[in-house]
């Protein structure tokens, strides 16, 4: 039973797992998971009984966090795209090099 559940956790990472990733491995999906987890925490705070200004300030903070995560999402997407582009470029260059090698060095023909 214990083993079974353990295995499941490994196969089925919850949204919290996004926090454990390396920033450079992050995907937009991870950013959405982070949003959900942070959102849930904020909801917990704002549904506690409060006095005075606290709810307004929590809400202000909440929308600043939305903005930060929007930025993170954009950065993650952008960097993934850049990596993708660089990889394609590299592969193209490799192919070119191989092609040229097959033709043999100039003058040897």
């Amino acid at each position, binding site marked *: 039973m214990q083993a079974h559940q353990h295995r*499941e956790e490994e*196969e*089925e990472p*919850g*949204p919290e797992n996004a926090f454990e990733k390396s920033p450079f491995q992050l995907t937009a*999906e991870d*950013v*959405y*998971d982070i*949003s*959900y987890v*942070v*959102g849930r925490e*904020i909801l917990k705070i*704002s*549904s506690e009984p409060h006095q005075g200004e606290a*709810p*307004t300030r929590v*809400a*202000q903070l*909440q*929308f600043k*966090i*939305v*903005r930060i*995560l*929007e930025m*993170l*999402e954009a950065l993650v997407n952008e960097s993934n795209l850049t990596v993708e582009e660089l990889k394609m470029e590299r592969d193209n260059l490799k192919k070119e090099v191989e092609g040229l090698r097959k033709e043999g060095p100039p003058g040897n023909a």
Partner: protein
Amino acid sequence: VNIPRKEKDFQGMLEYKKDDEPKLVKNLILDLKPRGVAVNLIPGLPAYILFMCVRHADYLNDDQKVRSLLTSTINGIKKVLKKRGDDFEMVSFWLSNTCRFLHCLKQYSGEEGFMKHNTPRQNDHCLTNFDLAEYRQVLSDLAIQIYQQLVRVLENILQPMIVSGMLEHETIQGVSGVKPPGLRKRTSSIADEGTYTLDSIIRQLNTFHSVMCQHGMDPELIKQVVKQTFYITGAVTLNNLLLRKDMCSWSKGMQIRYNVSQLEEWLRDKNLMNSGAKETLEPLIQAAQLLQVKKKTDEDAEAICSMCNALTTAQIVKVLNLYTPVNEFEERVSISFIRTIQMRLRDRKDSPQLLMDAKHIFPVTFPFNPSSLALETIQIPASLGLAFISRV
């Protein structure tokens, strides 16, 4: 550069120009992704934004604008679900948001019955000019329709997993090592790769559940979805049991009980034991017990009759008829034993039904679920592309 300005006191309304209504519907409904930073951080955000737009139109006493917005909203949701209606995530998203919109229209209707949990500030936000009770009815009908669509999508995903995962795949080793003689082995070891197991089903349930939670779906509604899911699983499994000879053996009974206990464990894990989901498995549980109990003496017959109160006589008799002894220590069920059972159950007024209706959908309800969210604190995240509407 945005020069930060002292926050002014907002009233929790949103204003847009009438000409921008199509753009509003397009960005907030038609093109909105069910997964994104803003909607994940604030579940139900599209519904709150729509309601705040309704509030401003109500404040302007502009009945034409209110009517137009509500009609476009409803049509927009229908359009999305027509286009992406086979996508569980999309359907779950719009079921959650349609319900939230409906809850907002109630919470801020100004009707006392819906104001009990409101803060004084929330009470100030009630609609003042229009009674939208008729639109609430339309939205509630729409929510029912979306719910049925959700069940259909979920069923289509689950259907191919059930027989394989609940009946064919063997999770307990050694029990069914002895195959009933003369029966062909359905699950060959080669087919094992790529076939569904109980784990596949549990994983699918986890996915469904986590998507609905992320959409902020009402807990009461999640319970109903889970109950419906368990019903489908139980009904499809039982129907196959009643149709296949190779499924009626002592070891299959063992297998089914183990699988059911795993499903129960899942419910306990997710705190859904009071959802009524477990109860929908009762006919299957009893059929599995029937496969395991002794089937010889009069006392055995009596025990079966009092145990199987969730199975029809037709189903009990069918299982007994199909029952196939697993080894030489067991015997076939005798014809006289089946007769005894039939005699005992003669006075029971039950339906002649053999197969369960696996397409049956329990009627859904949407209990009022007010929110503590303060409308005046809501801002419009940039990623929604709604810069043309302004806070009031």
